[in-house]
């Protein structure tokens, strides 16, 4: 059984009189430990997909399964715990708490989990052991994103979801972040789902899901994904 499975998932928004299907019958599967890139243009429904997979939103119809559990049937409370224990989220704009240091930002997430990783260690893993006591405003964008990744990882989630993690970063830093995510996937065996509009990223994925107009356009698997350092965009 697949680790993640979308079966004919729909998400319909009521916009006044009009019903808009942001996700319109999406089906795909992801295996455990894969580095997955979801790619599609703006408005294709990839953010909606992310929201539903991340437990931030529920689907109108269809089934979402994760590690054998039916996420699509979760109520608010279960969704909250799902986000809490199963999902690690990396935001485009890092979303660090400005008033907490790097370490504290990581601990913010780990303190609510049952089986967290050591915050300092995780920060060391992402290469920030020397900035552990700095506030976000004292860190560069890349560093902030590393903190955000550390925060996601420290929860020891089942899935790491990253939404345009390089979107606010310069090219070089973006690459470093991609590398970090790829390494994390490889080193920790965590399933990583990266959402982007940038098709250049498809090369580094184990599995690429192409999204177009609310539907899965294509799913391809790379037997030998490239290293993040090698790709260019």
């Amino acid at each position, binding site marked *: 059984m697949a680790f993640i499975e979308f079966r004919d998932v729909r998400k319909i928004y009521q916009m006044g009189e009009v019903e808009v299907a942001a996700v319109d019958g999406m089906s795909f599967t992801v295996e455990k430990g894969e580095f997955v890139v979801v790619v599609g243009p703006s408005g294709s429904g990839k*953010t909606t997909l*992310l*929201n539903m997979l*991340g437990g*931030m*939103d529920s689907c109108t119809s269809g089934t979402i399964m994760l590690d054998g559990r039916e996420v699509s049937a979760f109520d608010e*409370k279960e969704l*909250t*715990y*799902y*986000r*809490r*224990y199963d*999902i690690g*989220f990396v*935001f*485009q*704009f890092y*979303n660090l*708490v*400005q*008033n*907490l*240091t790097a370490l*504290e930002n990581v*601990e*913010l*997430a780990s*303190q*609510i989990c049952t089986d967290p990783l050591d915050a300092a260690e995780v920060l060391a893993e992402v290469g920030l052991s020397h900035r552990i006591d700095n*506030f*976000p*405003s*004292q860190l560069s964008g890349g560093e902030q994103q590393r903190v955000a990744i550390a*925060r996601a990882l420290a*929860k020891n989630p089942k899935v790491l979801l990253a*939404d345009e993690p390089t979107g*606010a970063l310069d090219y070089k830093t973006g690459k470093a972040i991609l590398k970090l995510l790829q390494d994390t996937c490889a080193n920790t065996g965590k399933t990583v789902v990266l959402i982007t509009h940038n098709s250049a990223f498809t090369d580094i994925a184990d599995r690429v899901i192409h999204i177009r107009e609310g539907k899965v356009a294509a799913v391809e698997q790379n037997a030998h994904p490239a290293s993040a350092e090698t790709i260019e965009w």
Partner: protein
Amino acid sequence: MAGAFRKEVVRSITHSLGRFLAIAIIAALGCGFYAGLRLTGPDMRLAGDTYYDATNLCDLRVVSSLGFTDDQIDEISQVEGVSGFMPAYESDVIAQIDGVQYTTRIHSLNVDKARASECDDGLNVESEDPNYINRPILVEGSWPESNDECLLSADTVWSTEVSVGDKVLLAEGASDLDDTFAVHEYTVSGFVRSSYYTCSTSVGSTSLGSGQLATFAYVPEGAFAEDFPYTEAFVTVAGAREVQWATDDYQLLVDATASRINGISDDLLASRLDGIRADAQAELDESRADFEAERADALQKLDDAQAELDDAKAKLDDAAAKLASSQATLDSSARDLASGQAQVDSGRAELEAQFAAAEEQFAAAEAQLDAAQASYDAAMSQRAQLVEQLAQAQAAGAYDVVAQLEAAIAQIDAQTAGVPEQIAQGRAQLAEQRSQAQASMDAAEGELASSQAAIDSGRAQLESGCRQLASGRSEYEDGLAQYEEGANELSTQRADAEEQFADAEAKLADAQADVDAIADTEGEVYVLDLTKNIGAESFKSDAGRIDQIAQVFPFLFFLVAALVSLTTMTRMVEEERVLIGTFKALGYSKARITSKYLIYAIVASGVGAIIGIVSLSKFLPWFIMGAYAIIYAVPCRPCPIDPAMTAAAAGLGVGITVIATWFAAASTLRERPAFLMLPRAPKAGKRILLERIRPVWRRLSFSWKVTSRNLFRYKRRFIMAIVGIAGCTALLLTGLGLQNAINDIIDKQYGELYHYNTIVRMASDSTDDEKSQVEQRVEEDASGEYAWLATANKQAQSISDDESADVSQHRVDIVVPENPDTLSDFNTLRTREGHEELALSDDGVLVSEKLAMELSLEVGSTFSIFDEDAVGDATGDGREVTVAGIMENYVGHYVYFTPTLYEQVMGEEPVFTTLYANEVEDEGAREVLSDELLATDGVKTVTYNDETIDSYRTMLKSVDSVVVVLVIAAALLAFVVLYNLTNINITERVREIATLKVLGFTPREVDAYIYRETLLLAVIGALVGLLLGIVMEGFVVVTAEVDQVMFGRDIHAASFIIAFLLTMVFSVIVTLAMRPKLRRIDMVESLKSNE
């Protein structure tokens, strides 16, 4: 203004109603409270003025210690500025109603004028007579029909239910009841409200009972004694009606007339004295005439008596002369008689001698005859024997013998023949001789006897003459004695009469001297304006207190309003950063862009201000006057909207908001458009002081860490929240503290300090006997503990070295316990702070704390005590006393002396005629006790503390409504501030919150994360507020305190807790109300770019 821009402005309002409302509400609160509180004082004065005008309250009261007659009233009415005048009687009495005693001031009422007046609205008493002054408003019942009906106060809190038809008995008067009143028992015909007594709880002071008047009453003028003079004249001042009472203009106008009346006070006194003197002289002349007539009469009577006596004397003398002549006559006849007797006696002696000589001769002749007889008889007897012997011898036959015998017989016969005849002849001769002698003797004897008889009758006559004389003499003696007695009596009478005349003369002379002295009588005319009317004056000073409070409270609201506007508008400007950049980029000028925010602020605060001002400047004065209505019987509550105040308040409110807005917008507008288009760099996190304390910091959870850091990160918000919440708590604490302070007056005074519940006051001349009767009666009930004290009302004055300095003067109760050692059983004497026991000593007096405060006294300092005159001013020489201790006391000003010290200072012995006792609480038993005690001679009043407590409790209910206002204001303040704070917190941190949600924080954890800050601020604010509240409460308490009362100085622990908890409750309500907003935050926000 361009249409689009204007639309944008309009929409910015409609699309952010919460923000708009926050500004509007705080502006409404700030401006409304400002205007409302500021207007309350003036509105109260306006209410007073309206009421006083409506009832034609006097502007001046002219009182003379000598009283007035129509002459003086005329004089007063002539004074320039006097537009109306009304002479009146008044007198203080202790009246008994339903068995309860009330010290009552009785006023005269012109019943005709009262009946002619009309009052339809319970306020305006219409009368055509401008000289009908102090018009009472009939609230219930009817005007008196006859002189034995009276009207009682409608606003007095009676100890029992008093209703129309009840009896009012005058038990005791300040002056002699009979001299003052023609009627001593009245029937209640109705109840009135009088503007002359604005304050129902403080009616005035008196010389009776406890010294405080409990109520007042009106009786018809005819109920006063016929020759009782007017005690006062009420005067209205021309033009004063048109000027508002209690303003400077009013006072100037009244003062001018008052000083003119004062100017004629000597005339008034002189004319009154002339009148009194003329009356007295006439009376004296009359009594002198009476006296003269009486004296003449008495003298006449004495003279008559004398004449009578003289007459009697003459008669007596006459009688004496007659007696003397009778005596002489008697004496001479006695002498005649004596000589007659002597003749008779000598004649008798001669006669007897002759008779004796004749007797002798007769006796000798007799003897011869007798001898012849005897020898004859012997011869016969011998013959008889011889005859017998012859018979025997013849019988015997012896004839010899017979012959012999015959012979012898014959011889005898022979011998005796003729003898008897001779004897008989001799005897006859003798008898003849004897009878001749006897006859002559008898004749002589007869002569003698008739002389003797003449003498005897003369003697008898003499004797009766003597007797007559003796009785005449004794009669005379009696007469003389009577006469002497009469003479004595008369002279005593005369002496007595003389003495009486002298006495009467002396008295008349004294009386004349008195009459002459009337001219020098020290009279005093007092011209008293309304500042001397305790009701009007305390109403005025309460209005003044509100003025003072109004200076402080609105400041708090304005401060909060400024902070709320500042934070809100700052947030708005920040939110619209990009928009501002866009406008700038489009070429709008800085001023133009700023104008949007200014317009927003002006509209928001303006709308709020207008609504707040209009509603609160109506509501607050109305409400506060309503609260005061329990104390002040002012039947109107005008609360006009004052344009100037509205403009000022609105100007202030809007101005503050505009300044805050300009301040908020200015910094952002200075930035270049390019920067504005970029998201503003988030405010950098900063380390805070707390972090340096590692052990503490390490223990904090992240939420706490972020909360702590946030608190100090946004200083404006921090200050706004702290000030706002502190203000809220402070208001609550002020309200509750005020309640404590006021309830403590009773709870502490009557619960902790006083341990007696009954006061019996006796006349100062009560005898020991009367006192012991009272003691006995008191001992019968309950605990039976009692203590005697001397009490008096005096005036205490501060002593100042600086002569120009104002001396502070207060009416005090002097208390001198007979036994200072046991006083503590009835009255705890202690310091307020530390509750240290204070003992009475001869070194100095104990003074109550409020008095010490008012006179700036401390232990060791000195002040003076004066006697008080008729209108309660100090009189005579001050007597200096030293303060030995300052004691806790809440009601009244007290000075406690030991008897020794009292005597030393006052120069007179204290008279212990006041009794403190602990008696039964049962009302029925009390009534019996009262009745029995009052029936005892010397007992003047019996009062129970419970009655006092009840009337205080009623009075203090007004505070509850003030507390309600404060609580509501506090709640509003808390809501606005907390709502604003939370709102900003949430909107500013939407991303953070969304992120937390995405991270898997449960709603509860998210709430905690956000609200921890709000609640922590609430806690800090509340703690600050408690401190602020102590200060504010202190200010309000000291400001609101009235002269004779000290409010409790402690805020109870419970009040701190309640104020704190209520603040927390308000905070929790706000957080609960804001929770949906927090819940609604979409996690998708976390994905959006930073604005």
